[in-house]
């Protein structure tokens, strides 16, 4: 894979110097027949193991209340109660901003989802989920980077962006991707032109190619970050971590900058003690951020799919500190214009003693790769999931999406009309 990456980039570098043979340029650039507006997949990672059983709670199940006498969310209709979703499950009241999206069928819930690996280590579980290979430590790259592995066309310098200081494992790998914490700060502070010419003139082929990507990404970002960004439709992003990240992703999407996949994260879900007030505070930020993103995108939401994930769920039973410990199955959200929402997906294993994983945690009945795989094939046009999730064979489709608005790679640059 590294090799293909190298070929691709070297060809680009040579093309720019006018010395590459034509076949190489053609292979590297491919044909550009993609539609202008491309599909975007946004991955939100909740680090720390969010408590899925309190985020979307099975309120008709008496066991839920007996296992969690102090921290269960009250039934719908009661004071501080759940927001009823389907007569069986209820949404945490702090997520009220997301309720209209569920009602408008733009938000789907997948419950009892997760990784089949039994580990309860944050570190290992995140690693497995981000590499997309549960149980395998030595996978060098992340699933989202492998999903990009079809450089058939010239792609945008901001094709894959992580709103993060360093490249998260999920997006790390041989395909070009940019990690940046702020669009505004993503620039060379001085002498940018001199630096750029130095690298563009350099005979150092590797550095030349990387620099070309860097300066192209900087230019793209600079061009769209010139104006202060104003969210549309009265969207109001909360400050903090996820809000600003999603706002900047929206900015990239609306600028038609060629973004295809984006990654954002929100940490701090590890509530071993005194969970209720902390979870409520975090969920408010989480829900308000996602809702603002959806509102801001307006009709562009039709091209955008958001998926949320966390390394594992938490114990079904509350612990002695009004918190919960590391568990297993969890909840995932899928949000966007093309989502077949308004429904809680997945087979519900129940919380009865014999159905709990190792008699303590919600079981996993939907492999997280089933959810991601469906989004990748139907949104990013990934043909062969076995390269993204080696060793995993997908089962029947969950039907999370309304239609196959499939597309190949984003056209870049967008003004480069090609009729071939």
């Amino acid at each position, binding site marked *: 894979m590294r090799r293909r990456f190298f070929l691709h980039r070297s060809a680009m570098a040579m093309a720019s110097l006018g010395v590459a043979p034509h076949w190489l340029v053609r292979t590297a650039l491919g044909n550009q027949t993609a539609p202008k507006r491309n599909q975007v997949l946004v991955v939100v990672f909740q680090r720390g193991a969010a408590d899925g059983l309190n985020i979307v709670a099975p309120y008709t199940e008496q066991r839920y209340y007996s296992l969690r006498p102090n921290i269960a969310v009250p039934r719908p209709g009661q004071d501080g109660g759940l927001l009823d979703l389907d007569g069986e499950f209820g949404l945490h009241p702090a997520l009220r901003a997301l309720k209209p999206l569920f009602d408008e069928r733009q938000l789907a819930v997948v419950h009892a989802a997760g990784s089949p690996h039994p580990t309860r280590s944050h570190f290992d579980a995140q690693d497995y989920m981000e590499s997309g290979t549960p149980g395998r430590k030595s996978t060098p790259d992340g699933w989202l980077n492998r999903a990009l592995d079809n450089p058939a066309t010239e792609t945008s310098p901001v094709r894959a962006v992580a709103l993060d200081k*360093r490249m998260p494992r999920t997006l790390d790998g041989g395909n070009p991707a940019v990690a940046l914490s702020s669009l505004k700060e993503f620039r060379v502070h001085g002498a940018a032109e001199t630096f750029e010419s130095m690298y563009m003139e350099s005979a150092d082929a590797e550095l030349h190619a990387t620099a070309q990507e860097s300066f192209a990404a*900087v230019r793209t970002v600079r061009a769209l970050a010139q104006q202060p960004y104003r969210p549309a439709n009265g969207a109001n992003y909360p400050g903090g971590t996820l809000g600003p990240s999603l706002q900047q992703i929206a900015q990239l999407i609306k600028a038609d900058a060629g973004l295809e996949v984006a990654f954002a994260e929100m940490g701090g879900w590890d509530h071993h003690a005194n969970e209720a007030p902390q979870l409520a505070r975090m969920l408010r930020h989480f829900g308000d951020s996602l809702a603002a993103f959806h509102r801001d995108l307006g009709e562009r939401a039709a091209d955008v799919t958001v998926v949320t994930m966390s390394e594992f769920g938490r114990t079904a039973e509350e612990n002695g500190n009004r918190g919960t410990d590391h568990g297993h199955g969890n909840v995932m959200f899928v949000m966007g214009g093309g989502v077949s929402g308004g429904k809680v997906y997945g087979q519900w294993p129940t919380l009865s003693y014999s159905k709990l994983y190792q008699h303590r945690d919600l079981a996993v009945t939907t492999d997280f790769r089933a959810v991601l795989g469906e989004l990748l094939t139907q949104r990013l046009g990934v043909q062969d999931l076995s390269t993204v999730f080696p060793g995993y064979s997908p089962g029947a489709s969950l039907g999370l999406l309304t239609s196959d608005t499939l597309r190949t790679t984003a056209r870049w640059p967008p003004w480069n009309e090609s009729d071939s």
Partner: protein
Amino acid sequence: MTGKLMMTAMLSCLGAGWVCAADEAASFHQEMPEARQVAHVLDRLSFGARPGEAERVEETGVEQWIEQQLHPETIPENPTLTARLGPLESLRLSDREIITQYPPPAQIRAISQGRLPPPDDPELAVLVRRLAERDRTRRMRKNGEGISKPGWRDLLTPEQQMQLRRGTPEEKVAVLTGLEPARLSDLLFALPPKMLRQMYAAAPVDLRRRMMFSLQPQQVVVADLVEGKLYRAIYSERQLEEVLTDFWFNHFNVYLNKGVVRHLATSYERDAIRPHVLGRFGDMLLATARHPAMLFYLDNWQSASPEALARLRKRRRGALPRLNGLNENYARELLELHTLGPNAGFTEDDVLAVARCFTGWSIEQPRKGGGFRFNQMLHDEDAKTVLGHRIPAGGGIEDGFEVLDILASHPATARFVSTKLAQRFVADHPPESLVNRMAETFSETEGDLREVMRTMLTSREFFSTGAERSKLKSPLEMVVSAVRAVDADVTFAFGLSVVIEQMGQPLYRQEEPNGYPNQSSGWLNAGTLVTRLNFAQALAANKLPGTRVDASRLGKTLDAVARTLLPAPLSDRSRAVIEAGLNGRPRSPEVLAALVLGSPEFQRR
């Protein structure tokens, strides 16, 4: 090589495949000009040359200098380094002492909830009681129980308050250093974290460590570890030892943020890695295998024979909830990453057998800083077969020793270790001939790493044009080499670690057991090149807190600055571009230094 020639070479390479075998092999036979050897050894055996260092190596003679570096104990240490390391006390403590003197948050909570007694040392007890008190207050506030915040303002005069809010960092620190000890202690626990952090760079090291302690004691241990590494890399005269300590820690990587590793990494590097980097590979392998940091990081401490576990459960009726049975994590990485290397022909059965051999290799009270402990009761006592060797039943702890012996003397290990070293010191795709000779040395000397290094560093491949300037600097190498090149005075190395982290290499925090990339391609990343350029400018313009640079000493003309900072002359192209870019603008030494440090030439070693 001209650009056109290079392109032609690349095209023919592309035709042939990933590695242009013939061309590369030839380049490893071509000796580099003698005049460039000094720069080369400094680039490879050190974290980059400091001003005047090339002349010193020249005087000593390249061969003699390499020999000195292979015997670090004979090199007098730089007094500046000794002074910098002095205050970083945790570097010299045992695991148990670290955990007592710099208690982790869980321990502070346990003390605040009365589940643990406060420490015996009276001075420490006062501090820990304060931390516990604050923890209690915070929890109550989180629960919505209204407790007024301790007001830091009450501890200061209006003038002092004003200075602390509006003054320069130096003025702020002056307010603190002017207080009597008891008041300062109160203030450190009352100030908001953000205000304290703003003062780190300007504060003298002892005060800074107290500030960190008042926020979170364990943070001091982490800061000491990171700063110790950077001070050594920047100031040590025993440069090869530092480069190798970095290399071998990375080879036997552990991740600082995985639980108790945070207070174990200090002794792991100091006791399990550093003493062996020019010693025997087998000794280092055993030291890492037994160290609690490795046992915890790769989960072996929880690995137990399922049968033994079932027997124990029966006897104790369902106790031991922690243990899940066999854990293969360490066994797999031991084979694949530490010794034989991937694709060395070992099977899943071998992994399983090795895991069974290491059952019971555990830790005595990991959360209290206890050491290695072999738990006979959890060990798999049956016979095993590892890589064709039969390990008889009833071996107990000996099973593990035997596996380590088999692995340390295995020819695949000799090759894998030699290849990795050659990748680090010679080229990303080192010539087969060299790797073979290194592996031979490894086998003949029973893994004497000094001899393996000597075989490599005196080889013609090492001094070939194929090796010269072929490696891209990692973020750590880029930052430290720049700091060394400009001869900066660093008093707050933690600040530099933040820059290195922004370039994608948070020190001691590579999660995967593979460690950081050993090959240049791993460091080519669009986002972080921008950070490299910005760092070059910030360093030259003296904008990095706690790192002072006197650019005026670097030279007045472009050529003079380039001569000071680069081991090889600036390329004609870069020179022309810089000249054109400077057209009409002032050529201050800062600007010139920034351009040279950010140049493509400076990104290589």
